[in-house]
């Protein structure tokens, strides 16, 4: 079974530029997460989707971050304009459904490392 795919693995941009990250979850997984992991910290949830609907985006900085999952499969996270403090690894994870997210396993991609200069 293929795992969670993310791209690009690495991205370097200057502040005020824009960037987009792509995630393809495990086939059949309804729930998808984007986490931000700043160096030395634990992952922080940015947004959670159930199929193509948003379950929680309370910690997403909506003035610069946006995310979509139009067909309920793959997802895109965009940052525009980027700030220095956005330098982090952006992790995508998926689970079978919301119940599994509580009682079961999240499957993670390898992450997209963003450096903002």
């Amino acid at each position, binding site marked *: 079974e293929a795992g969670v795919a993310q791209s690009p693995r690495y991205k370097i941009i200057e502040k005020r530029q824009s960037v987009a990250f792509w995630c393809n979850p495990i086939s059949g997984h309804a729930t998808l997460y984007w986490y931000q992991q700043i160096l030395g910290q634990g992952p922080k949830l940015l947004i959670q989707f159930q199929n193509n609907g948003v379950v*929680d985006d309370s910690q997403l900085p909506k003035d610069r971050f946006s995310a979509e999952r139009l067909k309920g499969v793959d997802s895109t996270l965009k940052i525009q304009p980027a700030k220095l403090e956005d330098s982090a690894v952006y992790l995508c994870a998926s689970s079978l459904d919301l119940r599994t997210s*509580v009682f079961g396993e999240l499957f993670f991609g390898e992450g997209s490392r963003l450096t903002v200069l």
Partner: protein
Amino acid sequence: AQSVTQLDSHVSVSEGTPVLLRCNYSSSYSPSLFWYVQHPNKGLQLLLKYTSAATLVKGINGFEAEFKKSETSFHLTKPSAHMSDAAEYFCVVSEGGSYIPTFGRGTSLIVHP
């Protein structure tokens, strides 16, 4: 509201000695608790989980954890560390009220030869 506190940012052990990584949680509901491991430049991998069944949970690679409700703890242990155990470990809490897994800040396990 749920939260998790990993009490040590770094733990250093010698190969062959026991490992103890400490985690305390706070939850309004009966929580599910997890430990994930992250090797450098790799995705997070589930080590073990507690979901209200047996309080002593066994995971992969010889790790285990014990859920202690009275102490609100879920410490991770391993009898004998191996060099390949060097990684970042995250304690995670999740509850039915929010469906949002919340991560601790992580504990870096360093294993000396």
